[in-house]
């Protein structure tokens, strides 16, 4: 069998039905195999888009996604998506073409050291040196991407090796002696955690992206113990919002209730969260009264930024199931948290998320998100780009299930939203998929509108158009004395005409009274849609923890 046909067999054996990619010289043998392999291949318009589409697919479905590119620029264009997937623990197998073996290291045409360039940003990578390794390596790649803390892997295949014939036998077991992630949490530590939760007077559950697979157990624990819950940007949806036990997101643009609760907590139970600087603010003043339970499948996250008092390494789903049982067995009275709850309720009443509504027809960006939330019944999969619109979406669209909110949290990649949305829509064809973006971000991967139109992928893109690189402008306003340097987007295209040019449907709305109807019409239109929403130009995201400040010192 041709090695490339073996690749197809491996993909099928791994349950892959769709891949995202772009052909070129060095991966043409693989593309010849795709010709009649029966695997859906989505031809993106830029490899970066393919990488983010794969991320969107993986984030929305929880399955391992696949992205392909050729050697050289194909691989380097994938790098941003690889780093993005590493930062947000997204399982993607990247398969890159490479120049033929005799050209390796000679600066051959379209040669780049893909292994070297991607090495610091992958969970693992393989360079094929013998075509007979291909099936085993591919299955190892899927195994590594999927298990433990998920992440991106790269398989680099020199084109001459991919053209060879190999004996193919299905690989049923993967044996990696140096890779054995801890899954079951330590029973003694879990017991200790249960006791700590039972002893706490001011507990908070702080859930990150690692809790998305443990949403049911997390919710059960929180409900039974009446624990307040806050989520990180990437953890949104792991606890259903809105809810009376829900404090909202924490961190730089989190709610006051969430940040104040962390500040006054005596016990914080971190689940699959990594104490990112956007969460902690000034580290030395973060949650100064709290002891920490830290549940994480990655031992290197434990005590990385904040020393853990009760570390538990393993799969959050399994650990929380046991923690639930242990906690119930202690039979403590949730009434002990009444004082704590009344303090939290006080903050919630005094400091809800808010914005100043306009008198006239001007549309506030927050109102646009609320209108999208209402029009989609809170049920859409929402992807976002990076900037102000991302924070407003995180604040004002309430996510009630995991994998409903898809954004570039760790790396903060502008240009993520549209390709991620098309990947999510391919993975979840029964769901409405909405991309919330800005007029800056959308232009970083706008070519993927063609992919949507070409494949009938019905992503509804809402551009919160303020004519600025809004978040940078906000920081310049607040921290750089309003010296607005290079943040005005003067040459924006006419997004309605752009939609038309790509074969999508375009809408524009600039009046508040038309907002709801326009969004409704957009959602009811078949195929990909672009809605240009003209919003207040100089609106700021509040509340805000200034960079380097303590979380309790929120402004706005």
């Amino acid at each position: 069998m041709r090695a490339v046909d073996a690749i197809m067999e491996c993909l099928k054996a791994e349950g892959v039905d769709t891949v995202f990619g772009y052909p070129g010289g060095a991966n043409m043998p693989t593309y010849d195999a795709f010709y009649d392999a029966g695997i859906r291949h989505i031809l993106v318009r830029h490899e970066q888009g393919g990488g983010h589409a794969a991320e969107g697919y993986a984030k929305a479905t929880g399955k391992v996604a696949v992205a392909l590119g050729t050697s050289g620029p194909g691989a380097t264009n994938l790098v941003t998506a690889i780093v993005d997937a590493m930062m947000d623990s997204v399982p993607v197998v990247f398969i890159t073409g490479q120049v033929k073996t005799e050209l390796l290291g000679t600066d051959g045409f379209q040669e780049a050291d893909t292994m070297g360039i991607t090495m610091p940003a992958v969970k693992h990578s393989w360079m094929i040196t013998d075509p007979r390794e291909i099936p085993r390596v591919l299955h190892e790649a899927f195994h590594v991407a999927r298990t433990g803390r998920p992440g991106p892997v790269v398989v680099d295949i020199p084109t001459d090796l991919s053209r060879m014939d190999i004996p193919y036998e299905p690989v049923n077991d993967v044996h990696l002696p140096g890779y054995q992630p801890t899954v079951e949490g330590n029973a003694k530590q879990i017991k200790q955690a249960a006791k700590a939760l039972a002893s706490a007077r001011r507990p908070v559950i702080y859930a990150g992206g690692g809790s998305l697979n443990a949403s049911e157990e997390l919710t059960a624990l929180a409900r039974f113990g009446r624990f307040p819950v806050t989520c990180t940007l990437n953890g949104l949806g792991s606890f259903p919002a809105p809810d009376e036990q829900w404090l909202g997101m924490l961190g730089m643009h989190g709610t006051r209730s969430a940040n104040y609760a962390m500040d006054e907590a005596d016990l914080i139970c971190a689940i699959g969260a990594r104490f990112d600087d956007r969460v902690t603010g000034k580290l030395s003043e973060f949650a100064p009264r709290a002891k920490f339970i830290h549940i994480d499948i990655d031992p290197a996250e434990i005590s990385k930024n904040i020393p853990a008092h009760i570390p538990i390494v393993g799969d959050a789903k399994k650990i929380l199931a046991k923690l639930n049982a242990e906690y119930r067995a202690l039979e403590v009275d949730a009434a002990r948290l009444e004082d704590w709850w009344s303090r939290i309720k006080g903050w919630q009443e005094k400091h809800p998320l808010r914005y100043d509504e306009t008198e006239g027809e001007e549309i506030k960006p927050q109102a646009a998100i609320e209108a999208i939330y209402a029009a989609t019944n809170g049920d859409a999969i929402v992807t976002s780009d990076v900037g102000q619109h991302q924070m407003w979406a995180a604040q004002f669209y309430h996510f009630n299930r995991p994998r409903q909110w898809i954004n570039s949290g760790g790396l903060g990649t502008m240009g993520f939203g549209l390709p991620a949305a098309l990947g999510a829509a391919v993975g979840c064809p029964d769901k409405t998929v909405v991309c919330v973006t800005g007029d800056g971000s959308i232009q970083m991967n706008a070519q993927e509108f063609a992919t949507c139109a070409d494949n009938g992928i019905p992503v509804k893109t809402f551009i919160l158009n303020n004519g600025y690189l809004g978040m940078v402008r906000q920081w310049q306003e607040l921290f750089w004395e309003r010296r607005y340097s290079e943040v005005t987007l003067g040459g924006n295209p006419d997004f309605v005409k752009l939609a038309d040019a790509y074969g999508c449907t375009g809408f524009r709305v600039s009046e508040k009274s038309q907002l709801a109807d326009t969004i409704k019409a957009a959602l009811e239109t078949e195929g990909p849609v672009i809605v240009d929403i003209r919003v207040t130009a100089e609106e700021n995201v509040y509340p805000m923890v200034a960079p380097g400040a303590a979380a309790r010192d929120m402004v706005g």
Partner: protein
Amino acid sequence: MGEPGTKELLSLEDLEASASLRSGRKHVLSILVENKPGVLTRIAGLFARRGFNIDTLSVGPTDEDQLSRITLTVDGAMHPIDQVTKQLHKLINVLKIRDLEPSETVTRELALFKVAINDGHQRAEVMQVTEIFRGKVVDVTKRSMIVEVTGTRDKIEAFEQMVRPFGLIEMMRTGEIAISRGRGET
């Protein structure tokens, strides 16, 4: 605590955290890895990314064909090494890591010293020092000598102090290798 309806289960106040501290001493990490291309780059990259300086590094085969042993020393006074050790554990080609306890470890390093010689008297003196350090003269010319010394880092540094006044033309050191004392595997 101790209020009606609740049991005193544990005192949160008494919980202690294991912080990521600088140990203040030199660490010898013995790392067993799969003998595959790129392994050393992955390991070195983890140190470089954190701005950690590797003091010595030696790589060699083991008694098993597919495995190599990397012995690496890093200053625990300069860098908190537990984070990087955890990251090393995550590398798929890394099978085992040991942060060796100095008192339970035998360490050795080999060094070659090229010493300038001007006359017979100096040659005799260098040979005498070499003998005291149980070194070996491995090359002699009219104007130079090469001496091989094996031992702990301290011993090699002591030898260096002794021959430097003669004129040390060059010195090559392998970096330490280390093996745990007793019957157990390193």
